[in-house]
């Protein structure tokens, strides 16, 4: 760890970064959650292909829906682990005892989760392009932007619910139960805007959906950051 932060307690964002780095270091050393979420996403992408009549629905029409549904489900796997890893030996007490703001813990956890889901997207998106024979165009760049917006919203809500679900009697079931309704506007916004871009429509057509995604991100990042301290046991 850096010497500069040894004595003075770090600021909110600096502390958040430390929390995120801790989570990412654990994930990087074990890699179990990331690899299983990744394999899950790739399996999902391939299985979905056979759930449709490919002569009736063209792959280009199918791909956006598949991408975003798989993305949310794979994301849930990562979110589960986010606070699940703090349960062992009550590691969360160490975090709570640290001289950092509660909000920093949330932002740090969310940042680590963001890296996690973006990592999954970085592999899943090309896989969808490959398996569904999508034309590689400038739309892919805009798609990356949509992906980031969707990932931020997903992680904002999911991290908060992960913190709550982990302290309940049925954590594995409760997290998707609580999160999925909140992913509806995200999936809809991401799928609709990317469908238009993939079909070669002008960006202006996707704009109203992008606005929804941005508004969702702003509202829920703010609300969840404010709500997070209430999910902790003092």
């Amino acid at each position, binding site marked *: 760890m850096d010497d500069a932060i040894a004595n003075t307690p770090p600021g909110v964002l600096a502390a958040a970064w430390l929390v995120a780095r801790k989570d990412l270091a654990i994930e990087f050393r074990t890699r179990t959650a990331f690899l299983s979420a990744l394999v899950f996403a790739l399996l999902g992408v391939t299985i979905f292909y056979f759930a449709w009549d490919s002569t009736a629905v063209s792959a280009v029409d199918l791909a956006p829906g598949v991408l975003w549904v798989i993305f949310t489900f794979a994301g849930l796997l990562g979110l589960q682990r986010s606070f699940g890893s703090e349960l062992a030996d009550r590691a969360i007490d160490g975090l709570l005892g640290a001289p950092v703001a509660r909000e920093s813990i949330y932002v740090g956890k969310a940042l680590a989760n963001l890296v996690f889901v973006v990592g999954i997207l970085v592999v899943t998106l090309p896989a969808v392009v490959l398996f569904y024979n999508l034309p590689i165009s400038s739309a892919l760049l805009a798609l990356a932007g949509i992906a980031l917006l969707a990932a931020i919203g997903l992680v904002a809500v999911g991290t908060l619910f992960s913190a709550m679900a982990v302290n309940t009697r049925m954590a594995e079931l*409760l997290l998707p139960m609580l999160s999925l309704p909140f992913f509806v506007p995200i999936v809809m916004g991401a799928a609709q805007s990317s469908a238009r871009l993939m079909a070669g429509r002008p960006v202006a057509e996707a704009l*109203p959906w992008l606005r*929804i995604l941005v508004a969702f991100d702003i509202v829920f990042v703010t*609300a969840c950051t404010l709500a997070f301290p*209430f999910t902790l046991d003092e």
Partner: protein
Amino acid sequence: MTPPVVVFSDVERTPRDPLLIVAIIAVALVFIRALAFTPIEALQGPAQKILYVHASSAFIALYIAFVLMAITSILYLWLKDEKLDRVASSAAEVGLVFTTVVLLTGPLWGKTIWGAWWTWDARLTSTLFLWFIIVGYGLLRGAVEDRGRRARYSAVLGILAALLVPFIHLSVYMFRTLHPMPILLKPSSPSMPPEMQITFFSAFGAFLLLFAALLRVRYRVATLRDRLADLEQERA
């Protein structure tokens, strides 16, 4: 842990709630009026009578129960008063009953009028997801044992749900308006003959009374549950 022993003499037996009795009678009277003494709508036929149950329940579930839950959730996080948590959870549970009524009567009406049980219209979809969230709210409460934690968690969920519903409504609205729409018959036609208006408003009043009565009963159950938990703790 040994099973808790409840001494009934410790807890006063609650008499039948007079408000609940009045509410049930009012609802029964409204049913009689709606079925026998209100004219049948010319275009929709008898199916239109679902309006009296459906629209009243929808208004109460969405604009009273749910709003009450959201407001008391915010107030709980602020004031940490257990009573607010009880009101929020009672409003959610009674609201769930009313939302279920809405979701059951809607398709019955829709099938006769639109020719489809379900359409992914903004209102229907947001009501459905609201229903999912309140079910999740109930499951969450059931899955947390510590009372303070349960109250905090459900308050957080209640507030986030209130923020979510407008987003679902807006996105489904956009989803639909960018696509061809089924022919929607607006149920809230402003020109309603006076007999129907009277039936509608008395139905609304009766269901509102029922809501208030159920809320009160449910609140009392919540209070008793908490007292029981306290007694068990003292014993242990």
